[in-house]
């Protein structure tokens, strides 16, 4: 939240700077050589328009960072797990490695890992299982160079299913760890 404000302020300041040369040009009209001026009576008024600084928060201009660009592996945020398991499968290791690299290169970046489970069994046990899943992702991130204070692992258990179905396909979608960067949660 705070980062967005700072970005907006910066954008406004930059837009103001960009407008300055135009104002100087306007001032230049006043400073023009007398001979070059049209020989009519009344002093002409320069037409000036105050500049409008554009701040775009819709994510298209400044927002499409490397974290959300679909062509970047960093836009992939979900790690799927097997039934009643909390070890990260090999196929998701490149994804976790890429995020670890990002955290290593961006010391100020922070992330939340949310663990999820399918609907079967005890809600509390599933909450604990989701926690083991998010912590498995966190542990791998730390091993690959992320700092402890950059990653928080929490669990949503079976409470926030991505797929509302009651079959294996839906359950597989819900056995998941999600990565969210600060500002996204």
């Amino acid at each position, binding site marked *: 939240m705070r980062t967005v404000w700072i970005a907006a302020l910066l954008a406004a300041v930059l837009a103001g700077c960009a407008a300055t040369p135009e104002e100087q040009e306007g001032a230049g009209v006043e400073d023009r050589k007398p001979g070059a001026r049209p020989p009519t009576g009344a002093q002409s008024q320069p037409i000036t328009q105050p500049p409008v600084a554009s701040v775009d928060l819709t994510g298209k201009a400044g927002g499409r960072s490397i974290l959300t660009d679909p062509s970047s592996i960093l836009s992939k945020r979900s790690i799927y797990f097997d039934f009643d398991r909390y070890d990260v499968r090999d196929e998701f290791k490149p994804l976790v490695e890429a995020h670890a690299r990002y955290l290593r290169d961006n010391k100020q970046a922070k992330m939340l890992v949310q663990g999820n489970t399918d609907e079967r069994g*005890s809600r509390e*046990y599933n*909450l604990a299982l989701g926690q083991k899943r998010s*912590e498995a992702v966190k542990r791998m991130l730390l091993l690959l160079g992320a700092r402890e204070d950059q990653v928080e692992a*929490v669990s*949503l258990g079976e409470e926030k299913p991505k797929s509302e179905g009651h079959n294996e396909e839906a359950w597989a979608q819900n056995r998941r760890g999600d990565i969210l960067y600060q500002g996204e949660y």
Partner: protein
Amino acid sequence: MRLLFAALLLLAAASTATAQLSIEVTGAGAQRLPIAIAPFAGEGALSTGIAAIVRADLERSGLFRGIEVPALNPPLTDSSNVNFTEWRSRLADALVLGSVATRPDGRFEVRFRLYDVVKQTALGGVAYTLTKTQVRATAHRISDYVYEKLTGEKGVFSTRIAYVVKRGTRFELQIADADGAGEETALASFEPIISPAWSPDGKRLAYVSFENKKPVVYVHSLLDGKRHVAANFKGSNSAPAWSPDGSRLAVALSRDGGSQLFIVNADGSGLRRLTNSAGIDTEPVFSPDGQTIYFTSDRGGSPQIYRMPAGGGDAQRVTFEGSYNVSPRISRDGKNLAYIARNGGKFQVALLDLASRQALTLTDSDKDESPSFAPNGRMILLATVIGGRGVLSAVSSDGRVKQRLSIAAGDVREPAWGPFIQ
């Protein structure tokens, strides 16, 4: 900012236009005592008839069968002379007669007397003073009196239950009478609420709310709606269980990694770690004497129920059959353990006799969760899924009597049966 946001999420609990739970009894005890409950003289002055509520209460227990009583003119009262021969001919073993009078101050007085028809004696009676909004509560008190006199164990008709209803994206923590009537919303939120647990005095609920986008344990005073955080550490905070004296909570926290058991004072102070395992430890519950904590752990490779001293220490495994036994609950006498067992892909309520080590599967449903003993140990309340919808169900601890509590709209889950009213 965050506070304001949380406040916005918690909607005012004002709507009362919600459909109440209705209860269907789908089984009954082998021997049901036939009882006649005559309409109370003058009960037409009340919003609801007392006799009908008492009869429904007693029948729902599975231990009684109500006998039809024809309209009597003049109506019998608690001071009428009882013609035992006539009631015997109607096959009644017991009889309740009562009356309602309006007091000068506008309140009502309800009196009743209970008779043993077989022995031809009066077993006692009580008089209650009530306002017009206390009719159901009064009827439940009468049911409790009759139940205790005739069975020797305390009735639970005056107790309350807590549960969570999900309607679309809205979650409501509700409190209702044990018969599902008179529901009130204690908390409404757009984020999940799970694991409500009654304080031993029945005045507070501990539960887990996700209103801050992660599980946090709260303690909520039902009388004034005041709530405070009992555990909000880094990671997940969940599975609150009250100590029998109501001073402390056992909780599952992931602040040190994994899911481990801790004990904390109900006000959130004095945190102390209880378990130290590499795996998952969760769902703690105190034995009634406060000496032991039962909990779920996967330390042996699959989730099973263990027990350990309440102050921490070596744990012993309690369940051995099957590869998934979770959600332990102990009966008030400390003799029985109810839990959820996975049997061939079905999640069902099981009961373990802790002395004989005999386990019994009580239900034939397949998605049972959150068992909860009635305070007299006779019934176990649970959540299950029927027709794709979450419903509450209750089963007697011998498996014979089954009740289904359904609600018109929405999924019902996470039931917890409250303590005896003091």
